[in-house]
């Protein structure tokens, strides 16, 4: 299905496609509650003090309601975030220059996916929020009981199952081969393998959930030269893009823990993904 086809379908499903179909705003519907509340805000006449105790309840409830509305309005604006996401800067810091779990200050970072400084292939991303730390091939943010993480790698070896003890095999040499290996390694598929164009490159997309225990312990899933083994946590959700970057298969892995990763952290992870640029 093409972008244009989807666009037409989404636009056709607009519940209110034509503003003219909307009857003129009925002032009595909108203005009555509004003006009543406006009066509460702008009426600064001194209130006559009543001696009857029971007569306090009405104004007190009104004042309390006004206070609640004011606080709610204040919260709405204090939580508004208009800070634009920075474009990836040319002077990005190499993740490889940092130690594992170093704090990442807001700024641009890159992962040299093959560890070869002579090649230009890299994934550059921007961290905006606080609490992010470096890992060998990306960044993560951990909270008391959970995490979100982004990795950009050229996979070296894969295990045929995340649930069984097997010997690792060489990773596929094309994005398609690599994608097929991950689509059949025992993860519970949440979004089936599908071709995509993402981050400027063609490839494949997959979302899988790590089984809760596999009847034993979850085994490693893949390695990246020269050292790392990637172990998943049970019930971890992993979103993959397997990209063909001018002939080199590059895997982008975004992961989080459904139900325990704070929504704000998952939103930050998506914001980091928005800035990710894969340079051939």
């Amino acid at each position, binding site marked *: 299905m093409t972008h244009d086809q989807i666009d037409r*379908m*989404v*636009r056709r499903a*607009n*519940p209110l496609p034509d503003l003219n179909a*909307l009857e003129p705003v009925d002032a009595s519907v909108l203005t009555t509650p509004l003006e009543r509340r406006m009066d509460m805000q702008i009426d600064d006449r001194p209130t006559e003090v009543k001696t009857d105790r029971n007569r306090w309840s009405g104004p007190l409830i009104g004042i309390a309601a006004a206070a609640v509305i004011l606080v709610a309005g204040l919260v709405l604006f204090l939580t508004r975030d*208009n800070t*634009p*996401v920075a*474009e990836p800067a040319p002077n990005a810091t190499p993740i490889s220059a940092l130690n594992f779990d170093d704090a990442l200050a807001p700024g641009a970072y890159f992962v040299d996916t093959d560890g070869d400084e002579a090649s230009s292939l890299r994934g550059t991303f921007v961290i905006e929020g606080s609490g992010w730390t470096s890992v060998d091939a990306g960044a993560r943010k951990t909270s008391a009981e959970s995490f979100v993480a982004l990795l950009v790698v050229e996979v070296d070896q894969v295990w045929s199952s995340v649930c069984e003890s097997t010997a690792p095999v060489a990773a596929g040499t094309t994005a398609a081969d690599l994608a097929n290996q991950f689509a059949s390694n025992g993860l519970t598929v949440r979004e089936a393998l599908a071709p995509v164009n993402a981050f400027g490159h063609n490839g494949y997309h997959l979302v899988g959930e790590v089984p809760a225990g596999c009847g034993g312990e979850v085994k490693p899933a893949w390695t990246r030269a020269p050292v790392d083994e990637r172990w998943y946590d049970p019930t971890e959700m992993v979103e993959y893009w397997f990209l063909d970057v001018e002939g080199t298969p590059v895997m982008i892995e975004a992961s989080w823990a459904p139900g325990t990763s704070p929504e704000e952290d998952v939103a930050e992870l998506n914001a980091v993904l928005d800035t990710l640029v894969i340079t051939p």
Partner: protein
Amino acid sequence: MTTVDMARKARFEAIWAEHSVKVRAYCMRRVASHDADDVAAEIFLVVWRRIDEIPPAPKTLLYIYGIAGKVVSNHTRSFRRRSRLDEKLRNLGVAPPVDPAFLVVQSSDDVDVAAAVRNLRPKDREIVMLYAWDDLPRDDIATIMGMTRSAVDQRIHRSYQRLARALAPLIKPIPSPPVAEEGAT
């Protein structure tokens, strides 16, 4: 009422006259229509409180959409709580009220597409709705969402890919045209 208050009220009324239909439409596309007017009123209540900070045209509506996003999000959280109550009512054999917002949708396919849009992640959903339903330019969406234009492009691209996967079963193959038999006149 002081002269300043009168000026503020006049500005508010001008904003209302110019944008209330669009704001009401924004609400009707996102919440049940029986709640849309209340949510729209809530948005304009915030506009009134912030009247001195509302930027002049052409940024006025974008600023109001920013407010609207927060108010609708807050309403949706309340709605989810109410939905759980609806679920309990259903279990007791009491039907909750139908969401009239869907009654204006014309076909079952459109209902499925609208449902798929509503199932997108919250920020992605808002971007797709602003783009495809509120028909805003991508630069304006970037301003409202506090993102770069390229981030908005990426989100729309990725969301449409998700929708394509979700909606693939809806696509009916186009029947091949009949092939004329050789020698037929």
